[in-house]
């Protein structure tokens, strides 16, 4: 049961993080295309925002690892 929960959870985590980072990438590339001279600033902001999303996603991933290893049963 824990393994099933971990598998489904990891899938949802990947889905959410992928959507989030994809949207950041889309917005960043569009902005760079529109204003190439600001690409440095946009890249910095992009990495920072992606790092925040990644943090939440990895928190979910760690919980999935805990579930898969059967901690808390």
């Amino acid at each position, binding site marked *: 049961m824990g393994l099933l929960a971990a598998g489904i959870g990891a899938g949802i985590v990947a889905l959410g993080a992928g959507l989030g980072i994809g949207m950041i990438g889309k917005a960043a590339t569009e902005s760079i295309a529109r204003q190439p001279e600001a690409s440095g600033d946009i890249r910095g902001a992009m*990495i920072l925002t992606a*790092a925040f999303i990644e*943090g*939440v996603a*990895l*928190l979910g991933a*760690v919980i999935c*690892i805990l579930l898969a*290893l059967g*901690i808390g049963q």
Partner: protein
Amino acid sequence: MVQTLRRVFLTLLFLSISTSNTFASEQDEAQVLDVMGTVADHNYFKVPGFINGGKIYLPRIFYWESAEGESKLSAYLSTKSVLESGEFVETEEGALVPANGGHIIVDLSITSHLIYFWMGMLLALVLTVMAAGRYKRGIGRTVEPQGAFQNMFEVLFVFIRDDVARDNIDHHKADRYVPFLFTMFMGISFMNLFGLLPWAATATADLTVTATLAFVTFVITQFSGTKDYWAHIFWFPGVPTWVRVILTPVEILGMFTKPFALAIRLFANMLSGKIMIIAILGLVFIFADLFGAGAAYGVGIFSVSLTVVLYALKAFVALLQAYIFTLLSAVFIGMAAEDHAHSEEGYYTEHSAEEVSAN
């Protein structure tokens, strides 16, 4: 906090090792690939197999309380000499306990991750001192920086100073934090990159290491907090009192979630990179088990080439995660050390003129 995290992590590792052991007993014991064992902390230092049987044992240091209630600090050269001294016995789970009752208060043993932590920090120190010596002699100040080493060093240093510190921390305060940020960046980079070497361990794939690094950032953030920072936490300006009842606990929680996320991010990134490589190489053995040797050769070509790509990705991620850790540290410090309360009306019209003239 660090103690609790350490306990959680040790529980995790212990459980994983014990599960892999039950798996091992079902099959041929020597054939099992212990995934968690390769990322866990050990009391020995892995070296190439032809020296000392592949392991150099590290000292064990305990602060412990004996059955009579006196606390003692004991140091031994290795786990073997601990057992030979007769003061400690090994339990079935492999943990050490005092022979005549009592318990270990703190296990201060030197572990492989600690060695790599020291090596990373020492390498950062040595390189920085070397570069500082050159700048003291005037190379790089009166003339251009010379040689590949100094040029690369200057690129990195100026990057941390300008793009990380000065962009995120108030201008007149930023330079105070550059030494800390640069140490963090270099130390974490080296620790991450050490993990790419065969036999070496990734120190940052250990929650205790990343939690310690995040704790340092936490302490520095709190100590550089201005009056405005504390006002925003305990008495948020410009909102009704009943909102403050909700906001204050949230802000206090926010103080701790930031370094917590910092620690988890670095830890999970480095750990997942390591496990991913082992898992993809492990496919070869799984296919050999399921479909025979032919399938394993086919998968082997695919796995090995994918591992090479993953290795390159890991080298990039190692530097990227060090950068992100440093950048977020700078952002958090910058948020705490900000000088002005932006809530007051007319702030921008009042101050923008000053800032323009100051620049």
